[in-house]
């Protein structure tokens, strides 16, 4: 946390305190917006056109990863470069949990945010990436406050709920958001001496626990992801305290598709104008709903525009072993 004084004549030397502020600064700029999963240049352009604040470049959306199985890894750098060249908004990409070499590659490509994501197959069963070692900011998933604070201690500049990706079922995004918000609220009424035990129970650094106890909120922006599929889902998460939403499979999947039959060419170019129009209408409606989350009249209008919502997969019907959210610790 040493202050290195001001940089000289545009010199790029930045102290670590500056580095963290710049990372969180970009997260601040993304507030109140929608970050959309995209698998090709065309989808990235549709997302930008619809008003997304950023895109997440992926080879397969979570619903496809769920359906197809296998090891899910970082996207091909060529795809990421193409998407970076195609849009003017920030581009994010996912690295496997603990896979710092994938993260180094993503930083080299000029990705604006790295998602150390449970949606990909973890590369390390004990360690997450040391995110302080990077200039590029990281977002990480969390199911409770302790997990969120452990990720922040490792250098994450943004937290998102894990939810259950690729299902189109918002129930666990709600569960995780409520859990984090409730745990933050409970910290605010504890005395100083009780905070030491709270830190132990949350398995998180005392300094961060004490910071949350003072402010009642995370020291970095708190976004939501995992199963958000409709404008109403986005509004729900915003009203529960999310500062932005990530939308994955809910936009670029074929009408009524479930995560188990997505092999019906969801990756393909959206040549069919009807499919393209559907994806656009879903994307726009979720963007509108995220800004006007507190305005039911506008939400009704936005929801009306949506055709062909993802059929989805109820999380309650999934086996424990099929859950992505239990990856990471």
């Amino acid at each position: 946390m040493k202050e290195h004084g001001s940089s000289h004549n545009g010199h790029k030397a930045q102290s670590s305190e500056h580095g963290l502020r710049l990372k969180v600064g970009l997260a601040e700029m993304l507030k109140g917006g929608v970050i959309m999963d995209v698998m090709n240049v065309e989808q990235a352009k549709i997302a930008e056109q619809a008003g997304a604040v950023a895109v997440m470049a992926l080879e397969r959306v979570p619903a496809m990863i769920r359906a197809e199985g296998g090891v899910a890894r970082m996207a091909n750098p060529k795809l990421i470069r193409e998407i970076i060249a195609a849009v003017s908004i920030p581009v994010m990409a996912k690295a496997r949990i603990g896979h710092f070499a994938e993260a180094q590659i993503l930083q080299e490509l000029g990705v604006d945010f790295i998602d150390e994501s449970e949606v990909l197959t973890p590369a390390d069963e004990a360690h997450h990436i040391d995110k302080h070692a990077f200039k590029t900011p990281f977002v990480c998933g969390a199911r409770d406050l302790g997990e969120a604070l452990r990720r922040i201690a490792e250098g994450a500049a943004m937290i998102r709920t894990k939810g259950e990706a690729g299902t189109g079922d918002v129930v666990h995004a709600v569960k995780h958001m409520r859990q984090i918000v409730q745990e933050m609220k409970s910290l605010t009424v504890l005395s100083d001496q009780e905070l030491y035990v709270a830190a132990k129970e949350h398995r998180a650094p005392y300094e961060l626990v004490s910071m949350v106890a003072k402010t009642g909120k995370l020291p970095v922006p708190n976004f939501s992801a995992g199963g958000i599929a409709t404008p109403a889902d986005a509004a729900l998460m915003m009203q529960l305290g999310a500062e932005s939403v990530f939308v994955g499979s809910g936009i670029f999947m074929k009408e009524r598709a479930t995560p188990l039959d997505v092999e019906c060419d969801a990756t393909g170019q959206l040549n069919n104008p009807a499919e393209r129009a559907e994806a656009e209408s879903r994307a726009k409606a979720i963007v509108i709903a995220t800004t006007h989350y507190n305005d039911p009249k506008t939400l009704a209008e936005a929801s009306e525009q949506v055709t062909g919502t993802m059929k989805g997969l109820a999380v309650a019907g999934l086996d424990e072993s099929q859950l992505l959210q239990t990856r990471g610790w």
Partner: protein
Amino acid sequence: MVKTNPAWRALRAEGKTANLPEEKTETAKPRIGVLAIQGDYDAHASALQDVGAEPVLVRKPEQLKGLDGLIIPGGESTTFLKFLERDGFLESLRAFAAGAPTFGTCAGCILLATKVLHPPQPSLGILDATVERNAYGRQIDSSIEETATKLGPDFDTGPLETVYIRAPRIQQVGKGVSVLAERDGFPVLVRQGHLLAATFHPELSTDRRVHRYFVNMVGEARDSTPHSAPESIHKPHRKS
């Protein structure tokens, strides 16, 4: 500036507030809108509170009515435009910013400019400047710098911390635009009459000089004839 009945003030001083109308002393605070489509509008709102103004979040065109000024925050200008293109928001905003003090930071600066490059996109077109988006590169090129300012005699002249996040660059400005701060020879804080624009994020620093400067501009506009606000464009203002 505080417009209070002196009798009430006396009663308040004695702590006898039970029957007094609420908060009348607060009405003199300038009410400044913050465009809240998306972006770091909360950071601007708390900066405005720090300097004694009342922030009002603006998500729809009708919410511009009655405001003394407006801040267009940082965020994604392409996202802003999607909302502004609906319900005549862009026209309402243009009409508002043509007369009332308006301050744009980063994406807000892009929206105010007459010409936008890289890629070209629509804008309010009222600040005589050419602005290039993402001109310094990607997030990895974001930086915190310090710069000298020319805010005038009311302000400390010490260096100002400037936070650049995927920042745009003001390539050139018209004759009526004064440059209040520079980075590597390019303007980063400019004023044209009742318009103020920054390519950096003063709301992300603890230094409140730039917000105070803007609130002063709002005060000047309110003190001058309130019904002909557009005139203030041509009013002489404090120059370096």
